[in-house]
């Protein structure tokens, strides 16, 4: 086993570990959706505004998870550690 094989194996493990970042957005978006449902239940006439604000908040909460995905994608497809 030479060096690049080790780098490839460790990069695959690292990509898997990077996707642990998906936990955070899951919790955050679930919280946002729950609060949104609460808001619609309390004030059904404001549904349009609530849904729009909720989607915006969910998209911002998603950012950290997307960063994790980008790190995983870079490790898998554009690995900076491998010699060119």
């Amino acid at each position, binding site marked *: 086993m030479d060096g690049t094989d080790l780098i490839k194996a460790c990069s695959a493990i690292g990509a898997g570990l990077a996707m642990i970042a998906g936990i955070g957005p899951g919790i955050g978006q679930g919280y946002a959706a729950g609060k949104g449902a609460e808001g619609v239940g309390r004030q059904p006439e404001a549904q349009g505004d609530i849904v729009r604000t909720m989607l*915006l908040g969910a*998209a911002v909460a*998603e*950012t950290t998870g*997307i*960063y994790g995905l*980008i790190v995983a994608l870079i490790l898998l497809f554009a690995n900076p550690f491998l010699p060119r």
Partner: protein
Amino acid sequence: MNGGFGPYKVIELPGGIVISQTVTVTWLIMLLLTVFAYFASKKFNKVPDKFQNVVEILVESIYGLTKQTMGEDKINFAPYMGTLLLFIGVANVSGLFGLRPPTADVNTTLGLSIMTFFMVHYNSIKSNGIKNYMKGYLEPMPFLLPLNIIGELANPISLAFRLFGNIVGGLIIMVLLYGALGSISTSLGIGIPILQAGIPAVLHIYFDLFAGLLQSFIFTMLTMVFISMAMD
């Protein structure tokens, strides 16, 4: 670009300029939107026909959204926001027609978000004056200046990577699914990949239609919010 899920090189111009799939699909979308705009604004009747009704609803809803999000005084931004919404929306949905969405390339999304970045700062200077703009970086305390600068620079990057990550994540899952269904049908002894028909449709609806339209809406909304926040 070396294998994997990157855009294919279509042609390489002399001088090392690469025309990739992203560029050709963007040209196609530009053509489509231009033709649509030409026919939509060719003639307006007093009594609108079906097509004109659809166009009127589209334009009115974009103006309404801009007015609701940015306020009555910033209604001039509506044409740009409408263009952004239509371009990103069509680009994301183009995966349904077997094309590679241009937004699955970080160059496209970063270009769009840098446009937003410059609009935010230009309009902030224009409406607040350069003095108040500079003073905004020293708030709430002067020693937070580096943090404020990093925060401003992080905005376009997070905007670009949000769109890119969503679309490219969906694209990779679709490519993997097609590969898996193809190899399953080969190992079952069927010559043609019969399993590839029908099964991916559900995921296409989720990743291309739902997530794509949602992300185009979110990109436009965040652009509006950033600009109107910088101007107030």
